[in-house]
């Protein structure tokens, strides 16, 4: 069975879709009230964010657009030091989408929300003309405990820069699917709630953190260096590497430092907390390959990121320009 325009009509077919797929998988006490707005408990400081997901293909090695739509928003909330609480989701379904595929995506979304400890409390569905695809928007709210202040502006000279694992896995999982190339790379899409919670619980003084998504590590660090007015120095040789990702990238002329991830965090912590932080991150199921990759060396009004190459040369890293396209030969 496939999605037709009737599923977006707002009548019985729409209600059937909501009951049979959305409530079935995502249902909870708040969502199932089916009111025009969800009413939830709050706190004094909240973080809120929104993100839209248009990935093609909607299912790929290691995940799907449903899991991704939860991870992306949850990880953004974590970066503000928030405990993710509630999500809303908007589905834009294209005519021709297989109902079975939609159900797989929604069920995966439910599992990921459960893993991340968030409730999906409101939702919307629209159907448009199209070719069997699916877009999802999720918005999220998280509570920020009092006294917690996480921001790129807090980065200080001397901070250690830690990444939670190998780069480029999500990007390669998507590209290889489009290019019909076989390798063992799976998307890293994951909610990093446990990892971050555990760092806070153990008293690691996180100055700043950011999830390394589109544009990759180089872009994220360039932005953070600019907003904190610092110079960040990396050691190329210390970047955790996934061999299959590296081979794939070198084949296409791409660089892992510019590749997107969906379950990788970069942390800035004072040097005295470096060992403890690394230990905690490595003990998390999504942080086994974590490593210290560099330090914040000094103030720099303009902000700069320098990478010491494996051979000992220095290379300045800029934010990615335009779209990262494979080279021609």
């Amino acid at each position, binding site marked *: 069975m496939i999605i037709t325009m009737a599923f977006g009509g707002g009548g019985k077919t729409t209600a059937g879709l909501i009951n049979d797929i959305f409530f079935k998988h995502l249902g909870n006490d708040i969502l199932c009230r089916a009111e025009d707005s969800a009413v939830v408990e709050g706190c004094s400081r909240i973080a809120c964010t929104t993100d839209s997901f248009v990935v093609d293909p909607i299912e790929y090695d290691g995940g799907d657009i449903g899991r991704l739509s939860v991870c992306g928003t949850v990880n953004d909330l974590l970066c503000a030091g928030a405990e993710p609480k509630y999500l809303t989701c908007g589905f834009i379904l294209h005519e021709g989408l297989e109902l079975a595929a939609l159900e797989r995506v929604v069920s995966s979304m439910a599992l990921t929300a459960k893993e991340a400890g968030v409730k999906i409390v409101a939702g919307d569905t629209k159907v448009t003309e199209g070719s069997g695809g699916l877009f999802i928007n999720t918005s999220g709210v998280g509570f920020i405990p009092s006294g917690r202040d996480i921001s790129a502006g807090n980065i200080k000279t001397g901070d250690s820069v830690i990444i939670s694992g190998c780069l480029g896995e999500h990007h390669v999982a998507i590209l290889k699917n*489009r290019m019909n190339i076989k390798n063992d790379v799976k998307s890293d899409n994951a909610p990093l709630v446990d990892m971050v919670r555990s760092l806070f619980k153990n008293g690691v003084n996180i100055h700043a953190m950011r999830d390394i998504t589109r544009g990759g590590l180089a872009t994220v660090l360039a932005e953070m260096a600019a907003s904190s007015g610092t110079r960040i120095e990396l050691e190329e040789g210390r970047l955790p590497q996934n061999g299959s990702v590296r081979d794939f990238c070198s084949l296409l*002329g791409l660089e892992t430092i510019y590749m997107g991830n969906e379950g990788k965090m970069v942390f800035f912590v004072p040097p005295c907390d470096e060992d403890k932080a690394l230990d905690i991150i490595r003990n998390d199921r999504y942080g086994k390959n974590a490593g210290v990759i560099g330090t914040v060396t000094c103030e720099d009004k303009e902000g700069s990121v320098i990478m*010491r190459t494996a*051979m*000992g*040369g220095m*290379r300045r890293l800029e934010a990615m*320009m335009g779209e990262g396209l494979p080279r*021609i*030969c």
Partner: protein
Amino acid sequence: MTGRFLEDLKNYDGRQLKLMEVCGSHTAAIARSGIREIISPKIRLISGPGCPVCVTASSYIDRLTELARDGKTIVTFGDMIRVPGSTGSLYEAKAGGADVRMIYSPFDLIRMAADDPGRDFIFAAVGFETTIPVYTLMLDEIREKGIKNVRLLTALKCMIPVIEKLLCDGSGTDGFLAPGHVSVITGEKPFFETGKKYGVPFAITGFETDKLITGIWGLLKMISRGETGVRNFYPSAVKREGNIKARQKIEEYFENGNAYWRGIGCIPDSGLYLKKEYSGYDAGSRDLVKDEKFDVMCCCDKILTGKMEPVQCPLFSKACTPLSPKGACMVSSEGSCYVHYSAR
């Protein structure tokens, strides 16, 4: 071993040398390795015309965008989509509603064309000896499957004629890093002959850091011994005789003709065009001679021929950046200006 070679390169104190690579992948690998800053300042590594996108004449891009606006589906690889023509880039044509598709393998195109026989597909086939054999396999399949709705707009170029042109014009290059991928196809012979003819050394090398160091070190040794011709420092990939089968496939479909190189002009017999018997698969590739600069200050021509470094161009990183490129060298991630910009 590589460590010792690197030490030699750091400590070099002989006469000032200018070494040129002519391969976009070498340009990128050298910039990413940071090797320029650590070897002796007496060894200057410069980039020649090795990026296929950078050397494509503006008339070629104009012809592609014209076909796109005429309702044809344009299919291309990566960077080509961003190159500015006199009426805009393919990116802009796409945003204006033209059907421009980026593919990763030419065989994706065959699938698309077979699934949609009512649509005309134009494939932007650019590249050097490395890429051309793939196009011949694609043509084999197109013919085998009787696909009628695919034509190629080609900008295919050969490496040796442009190197000889640089040597004739006196670029002052002391030696060349021969392009690793091109050499896989051509073998050592063409570089040997050109090296002997013009009295310069060529070192064939690969792309990993250790291979680059070995290649540059080897080139230095050849220069110090007054050796000309070629040495192969990449024997794991490059055979002396090259890939004979691939060259036979190229000869089966293509013949040499004059080609226009952006900023350099016409180089006789430096291009490859579909032979007459296959002209039904060509979308008007010959005689695309116009080559316009979009900013008179643009120095891509001098940069491509190794006469100028990207930073010496008055537009570099000011009016010309990867987000608003004035010349093709700033477009492709293999282009000298782009590579220098992103590794400043």
